[in-house]
């Protein structure tokens, strides 16, 4: 097993009598972008401060690249780049002077490092500008540049995209992806879940000082789905209701008998189980068992030509909760299943002679996971 870049094991922290972290454990592998999510007051910043050697934990261990953060802070500081939430800048110096100062403070032995970092973070045009005149996004970029000066293995970024406009967020996101390409391990805390799902390879969700779930997003979703399946199975055993096969296992897509709405207009169809509302969180099975949000998914397909004739082809298929047709060849499929299922649907359509132009899975998986595993509790 490869040595993790970050290892947090049974971390506890108390401020006086207030317990802010309770047995938090997770690992981040080298080269990962790990998203750390949690409501306000969940203990994210405390965890990050322990990782950044700014706080000694009450109990537990945090190791960065195998070095104990509490016992050898100097060694850890050499290998991490930390950007605190709402980090400040020195306003009355220029961008270059700012980076030169930190290069000296880090004791970097080469003069060219500042130039390299300016180039990497695309601050070349701004290097002569006073920091005070920079936009928030540029200041954030400058902060990231600052964390890169000593070539750290691990970047710990606390809310790097907070207060940024959409363009700046996209720029920061792209920069993070670029840094990942360079082999950096990035630990990222953020409230913006869609943004995290765009860049993170795995996540950890903290609530009430406890880590409720951690791992790759897909794996977590799969795990939660399995849990729901077990629960659903238990419910079946007790209530003896009929549950569609789709909830028993993530079965591959298989076409069923085409079903048409009573009015004959094939513009939309919804399974009786999910009717009348196909919106998130409202679905129930035929047996009355709620279909959890994490397992209900939406897929947008764009096909050549009219989409209405396609609706009956998909309706009634295994795992299909509903199909809607839209203008311009748009089809929205509500289903239960994984990536394999999507592949089966596409293959079925293609082999049936339908020209599939785009396939766009809905990208709120992380939001759904977050909502499901947290309860909005504070420590």
């Amino acid at each position, binding site marked *: 097993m490869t*040595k993790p870049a970050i290892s947090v094991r049974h971390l506890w922290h108390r401020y006086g009598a207030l317990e802010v972290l309770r047995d938090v454990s997770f690992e981040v592998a080298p080269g990962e972008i790990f998203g750390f999510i949690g409501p306000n007051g969940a203990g994210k910043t405390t965890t990050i401060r322990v990782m950044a*050697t700014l706080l*000694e934990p009450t109990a537990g261990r945090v190791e960065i690249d195998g070095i104990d953060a509490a016992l050898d802070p100097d060694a850890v500081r050499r290998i991490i780049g930390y950007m605190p939430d*709402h980090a400040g800048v020195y306003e009355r110096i220029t961008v270059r002077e700012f980076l030169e100062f930190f290069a000296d403070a880090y004791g970097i032995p080469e003069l060219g490092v500042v130039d390299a970092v300016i180039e990497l973070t695309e601050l070349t045009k701004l290097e002569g500008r006073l920091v005070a005149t920079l936009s928030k996004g540029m200041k954030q970029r400058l902060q990231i540049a600052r964390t890169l000066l000593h070539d750290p293995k691990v970047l710990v970024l606390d809310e790097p995209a907070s207060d940024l406009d959409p363009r700046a967020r996209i720029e920061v996101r792209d920069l993070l992806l670029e840094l990942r390409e360079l082999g950096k391990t990035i630990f990222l805390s953020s409230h913006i879940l869609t943004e995290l799902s765009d860049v993170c390879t795995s996540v950890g969700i903290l609530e009430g000082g406890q880590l409720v779930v951690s791992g790759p997003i897909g794996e977590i979703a799969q795990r939660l789905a399995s849990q729901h399946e077990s629960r659903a199975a238990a419910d079946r055993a007790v209530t003896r209701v009929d549950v569609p096969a789709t909830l028993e296992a993530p079965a591959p897509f298989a076409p069923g008998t085409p079903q048409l709405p009573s009015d004959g207009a094939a513009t939309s169809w919804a399974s009786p189980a999910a009717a009348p509302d196909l919106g998130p969180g409202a679905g129930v099975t035929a047996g009355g068992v709620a279909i959890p949000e994490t397992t209900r998914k939406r897929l947008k397909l764009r096909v050549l030509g009219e989409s209405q004739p396609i609706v009956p082809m998909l309706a009634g298929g295994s795992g299909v909760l509903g199909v809607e047709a839209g203008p311009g060849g748009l089809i929205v499929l509500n289903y239960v299943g994984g990536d394999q299922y999507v592949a089966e649907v596409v293959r079925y359509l293609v082999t049936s002679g339908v020209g599939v132009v785009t396939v766009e899975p809905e990208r709120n998986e992380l939001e759904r996971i977050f909502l499901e595993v947290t309860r909005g509790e504070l420590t």
Partner: protein
Amino acid sequence: MSAQTGTASLPPPESMRGLARVRLRVAGLFRDPNPVWMRELRASARLQRTPVVLAVTTGMMTLLICSVGGLASIDSEPAKVGVWLYHTFFSLAFTLVAWMGPAMAATSIAAERSGGTWEALELTGLGAPAIARGKLLGALTYVVMYLVMLAPVGGLPFLFGGVTALEVLLAFVLLGAASILSVTFGLAMSSMFSSPALAILVTLLVSIPASIAAYLGLGVGLSFAANNLWHGVLAGPPVWLPTAYTRADFGIEYVTLLVLVPAVFVALPAWLFHEITVSNMAAPSDDRSTRLRVWTLVTGPFLTATAVACGVALNDDAWFVAGEIGLFCTWLFVAFLFTGEPLGPSARVQAAWQREGAGAGRRFLGPGVMPASALLLILVFGSFAALLVAAWLTLKTPDDYQGVLAIGGYAVSFLVFVTGFAAWARARSRGAGVPRIVLLGVLFLAFVGPWIAMAITGAFMDDRAPLVAAPSPLYAFELRKVMLGTGPERTLAVFAGGVACFSWTLIGLGLFAMAGVGVERRRAEERALKAKLEASIPPEAPHAEPG
């Protein structure tokens, strides 16, 4: 190497011994200056108001000096005008340094905290001492810039006569020393706050009255004492010290009072303020104690030596008593300082000690309220013993010595109590704030309470007076007075004083022992909690390197 100055590192010399090492270090100061200082200078250079403020200050000072000179020259000879101008200018310059220096330094560290730049700076690995040094140099540069701008105006008095060029130069040197003191004080205050506004406010609330007291006490007040010793020094004018260097007769008194005492009174507080700054800038889990403990360890012998030197040089029991009062106040302050000690070293500090193979001496000087209190007790006994032995060897009459002994003995016993009480109070609380406030309250009660009790019971006029007043440390002065006399009241006063001293010592040692037990118990509780929480940690799985 410095990216800020664009200078590359010097190649290492062939030998790193002796002169080569010194030369490399000196070269490093210029080629690799403190990065914080460099940044402060760059930022200050961009501050548009700096030259305006400098020009306005210089202009106003020039106008003021010209006005004073003009008024004084109406009916005074030029030499007297020169003296007038000299005292006026340096009094104003002292005010500028004493008020502006701390106020400017006070924003320095607090602004890093409020501006959200502190953590980034802390994690660079530069270290609190280097950051504090950079801040000190930055603030000092700013103050020195004012002094340089004012130098031509300060040179005017010399042209009128009455003061020599050397006296003007010495006054500027002393202003520089005052600048160091005021800036280090401002930085120490700044390191305690997160809000620059609050830091400035509190700093000025302390520094303005303190500077006025220093001006009147050490300036005007001491000029009379200096005139008694050296008639060439004028009695009354406040800026007497620079003139004393050229006008006093050279001898042991000169060396003691004009060289040793000012050096100690500037260097030790400045060093203390610097160490307080460094300590406050370090993280709570870091070693914030050793440097302060080293200061205490060095200050003890230095202050004792100064007190002994003053007493021996002037061969006067009053100087020995003054030395005792100085030592008493210093140790009282140190007791307050040590109340801020943690109960013991953090896991981080212990790991660092283990890594570096720290010996027992270093661990004794590390974090922990009990070793700190033990050190204080050692220093209290040692310093007073040295002073009393010197007094015994120097003073001619036994009565004089007994007066010094009375005050010294009482001071030691009361300091034992204070040390024990401070340790006990710290052992029972989570932080340093409550024990300090409680200690302050206890000191107030101990000093003033017995006298209030005496006033309430009306015991002033009868034989019971010593018995009621004896618990107050101020009673030591009464004791010294009665030591000179004879008769039954002397016996009663000495008996009451002896009982008070014995009681303070006994209570102090008892509290010290209780503090030791309390600290051990709390440390054991902390260890037990940590062990309980970590009990669930499974043994670490081995990680294989990739490939």
